């Protein structure tokens, strides 16, 4: 086996003591940048990049890559404990992660997220190892028509997220789409709703909105309920030390979720520009549609946490494929890695793995080791993090406000974005109070601009003809999958549900 020999060679490169040290530093830094809300892996990478100027490139890339995938582990911790996503790919993890913690299952939720991250990350690396050439074909077959269809497919997620009160849900999504129109119009270069402000040229970034809506909104809602007056109670319940480990039921009920989340996440990650955020949202909605307990989603269903967690980690591995096989970065973080490659005098492209086998395989091998290290670090660190939620709420709350503000500011050092975050916090409180859907708003804000740009690019290319969507093979595939999902999922639900529902009705 060629691959096996390559991998062993890579492992021999990766396993030198100094490289292992760099790998561990990267993993720990990654965890930390993941934990701080808003401060994502691309920012962490960019800050550490100048440090690597004088380093040996292999050790340096192992460290930088570990920061990148390590952030996916850390990012979920605050999603679960504080309802504040540590970074964009962990927004979906708040949907069920936080309710789980509220129900007194913070420990199991944290352990399961570490396990899910490990499975997703490792499945991702295995797929890179054996299928890199195949998947590089996937990443090079995506043009604007496919991106548009992918965004439409992502919008199916909206249907799921809109929830029971569809009117409020639709309004939430429309607000999100409206916010998505702010910024310089990509095609004509005209400013839309920027009011001449240089800070708004790039549009409204969804991270300040997500932090405000979820993190601060939840905080204000807790004040509203008088949580700060209860002497010792934290934001979530955590009183029973015995329930630290997940139950057998947790493992059994999510084993297929892990497989589906990993594969889906990896495939979406391979597509440049789609990335871990969309992968995690898609995994969440897919899992919810397939689940027999779909009505429990959003109320603390373990599968609702495991699905986005496996997917975002698998996607971060998947995004290495276009980087290594084509020299095309699929995300902001991999773009920083690409800049590092060029800085070290390497030339990423289709011949990269052939010309630099030690570098490429050393990196791949280090990702196996890195994921193991991160699993261990996560499990050991959980008792520490759990201490956070034992802090009385009246002391914790001001800290959350500071962390949200600092986290938002650190992304682009922008005051406008920080104000937006606070405004989103107030809006989030009222949305929460009156039953709107912050999740639908954020998703619409992510997908709206993506769909708009891709559709306009497509229409320019096809000179206004919609037939381009059926003339291209990859487009046809996506249409096929989307239609299958639309037709099949409600049917599956109909077959699946009565089995669960009927006993309940009999009881009533």
């Amino acid at each position, binding site marked *: 086996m060629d691959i096996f020999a390559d991998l062993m060679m890579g492992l021999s490169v990766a396993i030198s003591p100094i490289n292992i040290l760099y790998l561990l530093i990267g993993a720990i830094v990654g965890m930390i940048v993941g934990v701080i809300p808003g401060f994502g892996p691309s920012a962490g990478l960019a800050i550490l990049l100048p440090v690597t100027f004088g380093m040996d490139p292999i050790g340096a890339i192992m460290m930088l890559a570990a920061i990148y995938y390590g952030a996916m582990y850390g990012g979920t911790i605050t999603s679960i404990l504080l309802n504040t996503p540590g970074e964009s790919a962990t927004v979906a993890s708040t949907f069920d992660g936080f309710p789980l913690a509220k129900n007194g299952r913070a420990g199991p939720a944290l352990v399961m997220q570490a396990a899910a991250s490990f499975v997703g990350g490792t499945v991702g690396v295995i797929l890179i190892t054996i299928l890199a050439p195949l998947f590089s074909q996937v990443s090079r077959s995506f043009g604007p028509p496919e991106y548009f269809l992918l965004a439409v497919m992502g919008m199916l997620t909206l249907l799921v997220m809109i929830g029971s009160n569809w009117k409020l849900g639709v309004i939430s999504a429309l607000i999100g789409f409206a916010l998505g129109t702010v910024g310089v119009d990509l095609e004509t270069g005209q400013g839309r709703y920027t009011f001449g402000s240089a800070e708004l040229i790039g549009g409204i970034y969804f991270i300040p909105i997500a932090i405000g809506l979820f993190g601060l909104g939840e905080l204000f809602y807790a004040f509203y309920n008088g949580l700060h007056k209860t002497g010792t109670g934290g934001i979530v319940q955590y009183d029973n030390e015995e329930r630290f480990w997940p139950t057998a039921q947790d493992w059994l009920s999510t084993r297929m979720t892990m497989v589906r989340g990993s594969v889906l996440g990896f495939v979406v990650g391979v597509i440049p520009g789609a990335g871990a955020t969309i992968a995690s949202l898609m995994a969440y909605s897919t899992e919810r549609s397939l689940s027999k307990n779909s009505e429990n989603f959003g109320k603390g269903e373990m599968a609702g946490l495991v699905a986005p967690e496996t997917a975002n980690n698998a996607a971060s591995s998947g995004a290495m494929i276009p980087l290594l096989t084509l020299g095309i970065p699929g995300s902001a973080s991999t*773009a920083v890695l690409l800049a590092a490659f060029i800085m070290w005098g390497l030339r990423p492209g289709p011949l990269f793995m052939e010309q630099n086998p030690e570098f490429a395989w050393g990196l791949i091998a280090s990702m196996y080791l890195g994921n193991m290290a991160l699993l261990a670090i996560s499990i050991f660190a959980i008792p520490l993090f759990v201490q956070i939620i034992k802090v009385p709420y009246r002391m914790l709350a001001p800290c959350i406000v500071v962390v949200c503000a600092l986290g938002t500011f650190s992304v682009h050092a922008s005051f406008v974005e920080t104000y937006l975050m606070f405004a989103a916090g107030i809006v989030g409180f009222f949305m929460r109070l009156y039953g709107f859907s912050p999740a639908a708003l954020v998703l619409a804000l992510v997908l709206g601009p993506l769909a708009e740009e891709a559709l306009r690019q497509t229409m320019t290319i096809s000179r206004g003809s919609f037939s381009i969507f059926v003339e291209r093979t990859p487009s046809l595939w996506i249409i096929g999958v989307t239609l299958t999902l639309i037709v099949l999922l409600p049917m599956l639900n109909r077959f699946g549900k009565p089995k669960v529902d009927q006993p309940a009705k009999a009881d009533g």
Partner: protein
Amino acid sequence: MELTKTLGRRMLGAACAAAIAAPLAVATPAIAQSYPSADETLDWTIAFGPGGGNDIMARSIIEILNKYDLYDGEISAENRAGGSGAVGWGYLYGQDGNAYGISTTSGSFVTTPLQADTPWQPESFTPVALLATDDLVLVVNGDSEIDTIDEFIANAKANPTNIGGTGSVNVDFIVPTLFAEKAGFEFDYVSFNSMSEQTTALLSNALDAMVGNPGEILGLIESGDLKPLVFSGQTTPAALEGVPTMGSIGFDIGVSMPRGLILAPNAPAEAQEWWINTMKEVVQTPEWGEYISSNTLTPTVLYGEDFRQFLVNTKNGFEVVLREVGAID
């Protein structure tokens, strides 16, 4: 200088340079000793995040200054990113008259003031030097039947053609637009958010062609996945040997993105003079040559007022094209 072909512009530039240089030459010897003072920290603003083109350029220059002991005092480099450069250069703009505020420029230095109400314009600052330009290469898919730029132009005249680029109010749009005007063909411009999206769009055969910085796609050119047709700079970089320039086939467009060095507005003349002399040494070092070649930039050096004139010409050229298409009003 060859970049600005119009004779009138050249004369204007030269006149301005002479007017400013004359008093400089008199003032320099007396105060030359006092600048730079070792007690002052040089405040180097990088108007973009770490890892980008602007950041790499700034840090490369600082490394050379340190290695050859060209600057006595402390240098503190800070990334002040935001608003496509508006934040960082706005910060430098606020240090009117300061001799110790410095920054590197890139494409947004010209385009951001055209797009937003920035208090500053590119010519507001004290110019030190234009060091290099970022030029673009026009590429088609490796499987394309088109092999040369002549074939491309002939095909574009006969069939509707599209060209992809990153963003709309920038050089990616302006270069092919001016080129098409000169070569006499029409095309639809498709703008993308990032180089990676436009590259996959071309590889997936959705686009007919695209423009991009050669440094980012050299790997794909080397492997034959992309075919380079024409280069917008004055001389073709070594890595693109054999590719004609737009000028060499008779369609010179005279526009490129400035990578240079500026001081705060109204910085003391001796500071400007000191930096001009120092940069003359920097561009001679092998490290600088390495920076130019590894980032496939075109070395284009203009000092002081010539650089200011270059900025004004570039800005005016951009403004005309962008106004024509309605991108700005």
